[in-house]
């Protein structure tokens, strides 16, 4: 039997001890003595969240296919165990072999959202790894970050030895090979970092100097090591079919957030919504073949025993073979003990038909994401959904038996007016009216229920809104109050519900999203004063953060409420995401002028990623 890192005394005194014991179905067991490289793959949040993440499962599978590498998993201990580990000086350990993380060659941390940044410091701290790259020696693992937040890694730059910019599947092999070589030749840690810096997509923050102007904006960012390139090019998978995919994903004992087989049908999005970072940085759209997906569906259900299968992508309705794959899943698995859970699809005859097959319409709800309350503002954000689409889709759904609708919006979008805000209430009202107009009294089962939810808008790097000013907390709450007031004025107000997001945490997210290296001191200070699990509203403490800004002399407003000039150098400008700055500027201008840009399939708008030679940019062309 495996030996556990934690004693029975501890395991019987923490919540969900199963988070820490490993031994799950499909977890990979190797002899650590028989590999050259030990890689600790970390998701800096609690086990149930981290285990649900597809990207980690892909890399875990890919690394472990190599005989010379053993990749194990690491998650943030929950607050109860965190405290015990600190008191008793128990070092953080990996799930599989239960061995200290510090003994590994690499610690890879995936960065999925900004609010996990203090958890990164928790991981390093509990592992007894110095928080700052420059204090580490060969006794410490190489700490490498990857994932969406690396499109602006600067606020956490000092804590990492390396960042990997782009899709993880591509150049890790080369990195691992260079590591082996460096170790074999007895090179120094610095020499290894230099060798790594030469690999496309690898960014070594210590090799760059940032100079600031008097107004606080960046004057220049320059490499200070001859091995470091001035620009880091994002890496991406050219052809999704044949790309690594975990056929035997790990199946947790306890219920994870995603307790199902997930098929990634495509990467990227053709839509070009101007607020959406994923829609930009995962360009171009690359699809997996339907045949490959069918094969994976069989294999993964068999290997996991999951009772549910679902599809994943940014906009599943745009997948070319959607009908084929959905019909396949229903014919093959529905009613045979496997639930087919559909991603949010564009509401039309096809999706309503398949939804009525796999869900109980009386219990499920219909989802639309208009994002903005008026057509004018939807044009600004380039969201191609019209009021007509929503109302006719709702009518059709109501006829099919649904009577619950969810609408998702953002507040605080650039150029937003009171009319746009009130439009959220008005659109919700219209949906309710459609119900009473389409469904005759005798066929209604209860009232219609329309729930509108708003999140607050955070401008993100590599989107056309990267120049935009963000609202203050007061402005956000004021806008939510306007929507709320209007909701109450509606005739059908009893059928309408309105929820809004927290404003404090949004403002902080805004600082971390577009922050520079000076923000790292604030993160460290906040962590030292107890900030942890900031993504969890019950743990988030805004006061700690506000004090940290004060102590470090960093003004959060500089990063949020300031509108940036078109010529300002951004902290993330050293990254070549493939999307050209000219395109983003053009889109920012189009936004302000309320001009809609067609999607990639309707017309290419020359965003710049065609240079990668793959995906939607070449659809219909003979690719040689």
């Amino acid at each position, binding site marked *: *039997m*495996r030996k*556990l890192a934690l*004693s*029975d*005394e501890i*395991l*019987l*005194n923490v919540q969900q*001890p*199963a988070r820490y*014991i*490993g*031994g*799950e*179905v499909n977890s990979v067991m190797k002899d650590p003595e028989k590999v050259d490289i030990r890689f600790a793959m970390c998701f800096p949040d609690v086990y149930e969240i981290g285990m649900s993440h597809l990207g980690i499962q892909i890399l875990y599978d890919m690394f472990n296919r190599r005989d010379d590498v053993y990749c194990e998993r690491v998650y943030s201990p929950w607050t109860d165990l965190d405290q015990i580990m600190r008191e008793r000086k128990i070092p953080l350990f990996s799930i599989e072999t239960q061995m200290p993380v510090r003994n590994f060659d690499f610690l890879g941390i995936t960065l999925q959202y900004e609010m996990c940044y203090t958890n990164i410091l928790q991981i390093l701290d509990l592992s007894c790894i110095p928080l700052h790259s420059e204090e580490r020696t060969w006794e410490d693992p190489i700490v490498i970050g990857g994932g969406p937040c690396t499109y602006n890694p600067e606020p956490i730059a000092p804590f990492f030895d390396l960042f990997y910019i782009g899709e993880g599947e591509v150049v890790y092999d080369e990195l691992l090979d260079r590591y082996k070589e460096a170790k074999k030749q007895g090179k120094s840690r610095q020499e290894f970092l230099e060798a790594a810096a030469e690999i496309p997509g690898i960014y070594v923050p210590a090799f760059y100097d940032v100079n600031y102007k008097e107004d606080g904006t960046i004057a220049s960012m320059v490499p200070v090591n001859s091995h470091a390139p001035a620009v880091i090019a994002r890496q991406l998978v050219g052809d999704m079919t044949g790309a690594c995919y975990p056929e035997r994903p790990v*199946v947790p*004992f*306890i*219920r994870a957030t995603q307790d199902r087989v997930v098929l990634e049908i495509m990467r990227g999005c053709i839509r070009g919504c101007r607020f959406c970072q994923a829609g930009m940085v995962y360009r171009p759209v690359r699809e997996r073949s339907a045949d490959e997906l069918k094969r994976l569906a069989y294999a993964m*259900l*068999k*290997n*996991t*025993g*999951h*009772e549910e299968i679902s599809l994943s992508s940014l906009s599943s309705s745009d997948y070319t073979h959607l009908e084929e794959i959905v019909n396949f899943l229903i014919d093959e698995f529905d*009613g*045979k*003990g*496997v*639930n087919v859970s559909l991603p949010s699809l564009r509401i039309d005859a096809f999706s309503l038909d398949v939804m009525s097959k*796999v*869900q*109980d319409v009386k219990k499920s709800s219909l989802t639309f994401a208009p994002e903005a309350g008026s057509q004018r503002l939807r044009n600004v954000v380039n969201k191609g959904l019209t009021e007509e689409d929503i109302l006719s889709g709702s009518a059709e759904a109501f006829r099919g038996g649904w009577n619950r609708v969810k609408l998702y919006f953002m507040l605080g979008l650039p150029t937003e007016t009171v009319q746009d805000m009130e439009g959220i209430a008005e659109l919700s009202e219209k949906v309710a009216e459609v119900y009473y107009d389409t469904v005759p009294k005798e066929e209604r089962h209860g009232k219609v229920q329309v729930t509108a939810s708003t999140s607050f808008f955070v401008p993100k790097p590599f989107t056309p809104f990267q120049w935009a000013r963000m609202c203050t907390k007061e402005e956000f709450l004021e806008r939510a109050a306007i929507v709320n007031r209007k909701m109450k004025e509606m005739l059908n107000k009893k059928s309408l519900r309105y929820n809004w997001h927290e404003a404090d945490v949004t403002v902080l997210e805004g600082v971390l999203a577009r922050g520079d290296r000076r923000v790292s001191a604030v993160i460290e200070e906040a962590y030292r004063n107890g900030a942890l699990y900031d993504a969890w509203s019950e743990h988030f403490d805004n006061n700690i953060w506000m004090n940290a800004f004060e102590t470090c002399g960093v003004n959060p407003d500089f990063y949020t409420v300031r509108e940036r000039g078109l010529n300002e150098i951004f902290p993330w400008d050293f990254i070549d995401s493939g999307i050209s700055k000219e395109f983003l500027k053009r889109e920012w201008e189009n936004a302000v002028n309320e001009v809609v840009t067609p999607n990639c399939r309707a017309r290419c708008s020359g965003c710049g990623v065609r240079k990668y030679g793959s995906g939607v940019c070449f659809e219909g062309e003979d690719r040689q």
Partner: protein
Amino acid sequence: MKIRIKFSKQGPVRFIGHLDVMRYFQKVMRRAGVDIRYSEGFSPHQIMSFASPLSVGLTSNGEYMDIEVNSTGSSAEMIKKINDTNVEGIKVLSYRLLLDTAKNAMSQVAAADYCVRVKDEYSSEISPDFPQNFFNFCKNEKIEIIKTTKKGERTVNLSPFIYEVKMPEPDTVFLKLSSGSTVNVKPEQLLTAFFSEKQIEYRPYVFQVEREELYADEDPEGQHRFVPLKEYGQDITDN
């Protein structure tokens, strides 16, 4: 067809709670390709029921569940199939066909065997006389505990529900206790009572409690005749 499965739970998986063990076995059935029956409706679930939940931290050599299948291979074949997809620590010990009229395991349970031992790593935290003292304690004719129910507190004497106490090894106290829906006595309750009498703090982690077997009672009103649950099934042989 109704099938009764007996399995063991050993090692680190003792920290997996009952609900998660149930979810775990649903996935095992799919991985192993057991032709299990499903209920009707939008989210069909497997026809599967467990005899008795096991508390987190306990190990067991005698867990039971009943399932219904449409078709099945021989016992030996099915045990192999299932164990091939089981994780370390969970092992199917028997797979037997029940009569269609058989009562389910949960309603049958009347008694359970347990062994209580001190874990090696915590032996310094307790007197070496513990097994003997605990054995003597369990032999008492009056073992009173206070039960808090919705109606308030009341004192219960556990002694009549302890059917057997012995020390098969010098370090082991064996207990046969009333179990199931009528009176369910847990070894932890006896340990709590033991330490409260001695006025010493009870540290549950010091002890490894292991469940050994679950029984039905064929003579509940009279002398008690305990029959292991697996005896109600027949091995399925190749033919």
